[in-house]
């Protein structure tokens, strides 16, 4: 049974003088123990060990050599490409995603909003082979849209284009980045109160002025936060890139996957761990500010 201070019912005025204060302290932690044990063992411990091992040489001595290799090619190019695709896919998805979230949340009927929420949830989780198939079927060499465009006089394969290139991958990434933006930006739209629009109009503001001085400043932090999370999502995506590229486009998640599988051999056994640690660091630069912004905006979003 979960013990609790208030569970005993009686007011606890005398309790501070009780000789069992140590027992009380114990009670302050005990119910959280199962969660802490599981999270500690299956999450904190593996991540700590990962970062520690990244600093070990093949002979288990402390070294920085894994990191110096990680900053050289081909791994350097991998990082540059991954960061580039993270930024580009986030920026391209964020604005249409935010606008779509605005129209759906502020103008859509309840049924539509719920359907969009479920669909976005499923679509934001698509990836890997199924997503690759969808785009091969649409804009692959034998794709439907490719054929239609060709009939209309635009052969998208006349140049360098293929789904395995940076541009190809970028288009495919938008398929999960856009719904992700709709999901994480919608709460900010929902929290914009109708009263604020009315108050602004009553004070003589027009639509442009309302957006310039109230709507936009209120939504801007959430927008930046969402953009950061989208970057992290595009930066660390593995499954889709793995299904579409054939080693022609160096990306850090794929390089780590290759090292983990043993498909790629490296003289440094712990190189993959160093690459992983650097990925965590880069991802933290985006996600930690997102979480801070999220916490701050949650204050005014509370009803």
């Amino acid at each position: 049974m979960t013990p609790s201070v208030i569970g005993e019912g009686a007011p606890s005025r005398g309790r501070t003088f009780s000789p069992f204060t140590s027992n009380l302290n114990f009670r302050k932690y005990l119910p959280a123990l199962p969660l802490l044990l599981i999270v500690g063992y299956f999450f904190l411990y593996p991540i700590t060990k990962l970062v520690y091992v990244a600093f070990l040489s093949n002979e288990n001595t402390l070294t920085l050599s894994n990191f110096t290799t990680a900053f050289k090619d081909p791994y350097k190019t991998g990082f540059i490409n991954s960061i580039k695709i993270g930024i580009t896919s986030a920026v391209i998805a964020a604005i249409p995603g935010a606008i779509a979230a605005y129209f759906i949340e502020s103008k859509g009927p309840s049924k539509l909003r719920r359907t969009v929420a479920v669909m976005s949830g499923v679509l934001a989780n698509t990836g890997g082979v199924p997503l690759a198939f969808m785009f091969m079927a649409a804009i692959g060499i034998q794709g439907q849209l490719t054929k239609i465009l060709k009939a209309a006089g635009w052969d998208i394969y006349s140049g360098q284009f293929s789904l395995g290139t940076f541009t190809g991958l970028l288009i495919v990434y938008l398929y999960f980045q856009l719904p992700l933006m709709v999901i994480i930006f919608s709460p900010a739209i929902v929290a914009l109160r109708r009263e604020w629009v009315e108050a602004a109009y009553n004070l003589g503001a027009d639509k442009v002025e309302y957006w310039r001085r109230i709507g936009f400043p209120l939504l801007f932090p959430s927008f930046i936060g969402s953009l950061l999370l989208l970057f992290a999502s595009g930066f660390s995506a593995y499954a889709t890139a793995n299904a579409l590229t054939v080693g022609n486009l160096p990306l850090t998640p794929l390089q780590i996957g290759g090292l983990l599988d043993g498909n790629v051999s490296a003289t440094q056994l712990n190189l993959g761990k160093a690459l992983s640690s650097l990925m965590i660091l880069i991802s933290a630069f985006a996600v930690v500010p997102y979480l801070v912004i999220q916490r701050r905006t949650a204050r005014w979003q509370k009803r």
Partner: protein
Amino acid sequence: MKSSKIALPLTLAILGFFVFVPMLSAFEFSIRTPAKGGYGWDNYIWAVTEEEFLHYIFRSGGLAFLTVLITLLLLVPTITWLHLVQSPLRVAIDTVSLLPLVIPVVAFAVGAQISLPEFIQSTVLELPFLYFVLALPYAYRSLDIGLNAIPLKTLTEAARSAGANWVRTITSVIIPAIRSSVMATIAITFALSIGEYTLTVLLHWDTFPTWVTYVAQDNILGAIAISMMSLVIPFVILTGITLLLPERSNRGRR
């Protein structure tokens, strides 16, 4: 205003085009029957009669079910307790529960592989615990918001003085009071674990999402049919779950 009337349909049309063109293109491929020409459900029939189909459906479904169970069992009592008492742990647990968002899944897979002992890594039951970690930020936040919105102290005191023990208080008072948060938690945890690919494949396990890769090697149209199902099945299940939800409150929206 005219502009605001066409804005929503226009948005939906553009989004719909981007979402449905690839989906319908793949669907068209999946109902092709090259052997006899024309269209038919042959690829779908082939897929569901494959021996592995049911095996992997049950395996992925079972793992997702276990993940949901672990998530609810660990989180509902703990977060309830954190809301009731002034524990110094609250801030720490709040923060830790958001940390999985920071860790790229590939890095998490490497960490799990080098640190979990053999007896854990040799059973597929390690996956629900790892999926639990991946879903933790979403599940935690959803339950936390739900518990913030109800008069938790009053409810528990009432239940306790009516003679309910803690298990009963949680199952028949708290969970019904926050059922839309619980449903949302179930939905996100289920969706995440039934479709998880990266962690699963890097730890060398086979589930429904990774099975498609093997099928693609010898029956591409069958693999496309399976891919279509892997999109439609979660969609149907999640729509079912959300239809069970009460309407989202319109208070303050008017």
